[in-house]
């Protein structure tokens, strides 16, 4: 949560338990550095578009990946996805939807909006931890993100 250092992973999650479990999984996988947590859609958009409390941030310092829940207070996940993927400055940021929803309509709409991956949170904690760990590893370590220009 250090603004000065480049944030590598933006975790957008309103459910405190899911948030804690996710963070625990990332920590266990030694991926807890430079994580920023947004507790609703509005906060996520302020961060990405460097508004409000994040006005000092440069938009080009984008995270390597955004883990996005769909069911969020204020502005929901699909809207956040639409804004980020609809803006030429941010559309290259990889976004992984991580949600409890198995609804086909959510999956289809997410892909139509340009999501990079859609993961359903399993009830089973081991499977959940595994999914989070794999995601973090893949996107933070293996994926080569594009260079963003202002």
């Amino acid at each position, binding site marked *: 949560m250090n603004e000065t250092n480049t944030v590598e992973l933006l975790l957008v999650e309103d459910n405190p338990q*899911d948030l804690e479990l996710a963070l625990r999984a990332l920590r266990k996988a030694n991926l807890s550095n430079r994580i920023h947590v947004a507790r609703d859609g509005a906060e996520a958009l302020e961060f990405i578009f460097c508004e409000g409390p994040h006005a000092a941030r440069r938009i080009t310092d984008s995270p390597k990946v955004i883990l996005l829940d769909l069911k969020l207070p204020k502005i929901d996940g699909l809207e956040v996805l639409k804004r980020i993927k609809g803006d030429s400055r941010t559309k290259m940021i990889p976004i992984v939807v991580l949600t409890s929803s198995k609804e086909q309509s959510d999956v289809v709409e997410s892909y139509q909006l340009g999501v990079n991956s859609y993961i359903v949170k399993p009830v089973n904690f081991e499977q959940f931890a595994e999914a989070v760990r794999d995601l973090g590893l893949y996107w933070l370590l293996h994926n080569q993100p594009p260079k963003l220009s202002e």
Partner: protein
Amino acid sequence: MKPPLLPKEAELLACASVEVITEARRKEAVLKAGILQNAILNSANFSSIATDEKGVIQVFNVGAERMLGYAAADVLNKSTPAEISDPQELIARATGLSLEFATPIAPGFEALVFKASRGIEDIYELTYIRKDGSRFPAVVSVTALRDAQAGIIGYLLIGTDNTERKAAEEKLKASTKEVLDLKAALDEHAIVAITDSRGKIAFVNDKFCTISKYSRAELIGQDHRIINSGYHPKAFIHELWTTIGRGRVWHGEIKNKAKDGSFYWVDTTIVPFLDDQGKPRQYVAIRADITERKTAEEKLKASTKEVLDLKAALDEHAIVAITDSRGKITFVNDKFCTISKYSREELLGQDHRIINSGYHPKEFIHKLWTTIGHGRVWHGEIKNKAKDGSFYWVDTTIVPFLDDRGKPRQYVAIRADITERKAAEGTVRQLNTELEQRVIQRTAELETANKELEAFSYSVSHDLRAPLRAVDGFSQAVLLDYGPQLPEEGRRYLQTIRGGAQRMGALIDDLLTFARLNRQELNKRVIDTGKLVRDALDELGSPWSDRSVEILARDLPASPGDPVLLKQVWLNLLSNALKYTRKREKTVVEIGCMKTNGAETFFVRDNGTGFDMRYANKLFGVFQRLHRAEDYEGTGVGLAIVQRIIQRHGGRVWGEAAIDRGATFYFTLEKETTS
């Protein structure tokens, strides 16, 4: 021909007779005194010419002087009567007498007196020539004058002017000719027959023969029954005979039958001619051929009757009105009055605005008038208003009838009452509208319900699983982080908590799958069933890899269906089969297809634990289980899902089993022909 006595002569003789009879004594004296001779000789109306035996005139009386214009002195002892007679007539008379008496007779005085000279009474017509050259017809009586020894000493020619009689004769001749001409003309023109008092035909003219096709010989002597057509009633014939039998003229039209059996009509006048007793002596019948007219009349009558019959039928059936060119009603039939509730008197002379309902727009009325005004037939449905304010509908045809110039002369409107049909149509329309409204409302309600259900499913999907994840996650976190510090029993409790959470997650997943089945669209295509079954088996993985399992799949025909959903069916049935055979030493699963009730029936048969058929009705209910969870795990949703999918395909699923003797599940994907 014996000419009657001339009046003066008769009078004279009568007078003389009276003298002779009543005054016998004076007779002698009168004769002696020559009174009679003088009276005869001095009669101004008779010419008395006496000659000597040679013909030379000796006496020429006053009558002769008056008639012939000569004075006695002019002719006495000079001329003969031949000289004052027409010479041509003398020649003709001489020629005739010469032939009659076979002796030559000269065309002179001899010709005038030859018969008298033979003692034959001779009175004849003769043309005298007056002194001025003019002529006049005379009737002359010639008498030979004899002496005591009967020797002829002269001749007395007493003549009378025959001009008037001749004129009358000429007139009679002329009128006779006129009658004959008339008869000829009548014969030319008319069919004529004459019958005697008993009705026997005495005369027929040519036209009678021509029209009756009988010869004259065939007709004469017959009565008119020969041409009787049998058409007229007895009363008609009787009236005819009564009329003419009483001497009155009968006139009428008669249908007769010709010899060849064909019929002809004659306009007939029968005139009876009466005898002295006033009884009919004969009947003259004059006829004119009117067959053509009668035929035309009969045809006209027939077609008129046909028209009247049609009109009567139309009046029975339809509402009829006739209007003149300006739209004024000139005729309405009873049905018109009945439906409009107006009397005929109220309608005649009015135009149709009297029954205008105001329902139709002006353009409608305008179009109607334009159509019929141009002489074209208009057809349509009209709403009218009756006198009592009630409305009625009529299916209307208006036919314009045109005058010589092609302008409508009158309009005939024929209508049928369609009020009931219209009312029914209205009801149907209203019902349809209501139905549509209801459908729209129901659809909206259904959509709302669906949205609510979706929102509910979404919430279940999302929100119900999050707390389960927390339960499971933090239980695991305790186990991992603090496990060693917990007693064995504490660790087992945490594991049980986790198990419950996971089981609830599975239940939620199955429920959502089941709920989704209702709203998911079927995406039907022809499926390779064999491949579908292999895919399902692959997906199941190898939970039986440590078991002895034999899977027998036989001829599986292709069938139409939704591949995703049907794969779920096979997954559920096959996983059940493998699950309930777990305790068998050797598992045998048989997959196949057969025909039942005309439908392809797929089946999955296992040699597992089976079930009690008494509970078969519970097999396909949601959350219904026939086995305890500790024996065979499961949510109780699998077969409910199978049934829902099969039902949505229009098929049927059922199970057969016995405890410990395995189970067989059958399903069809189409309607069976018999149940």
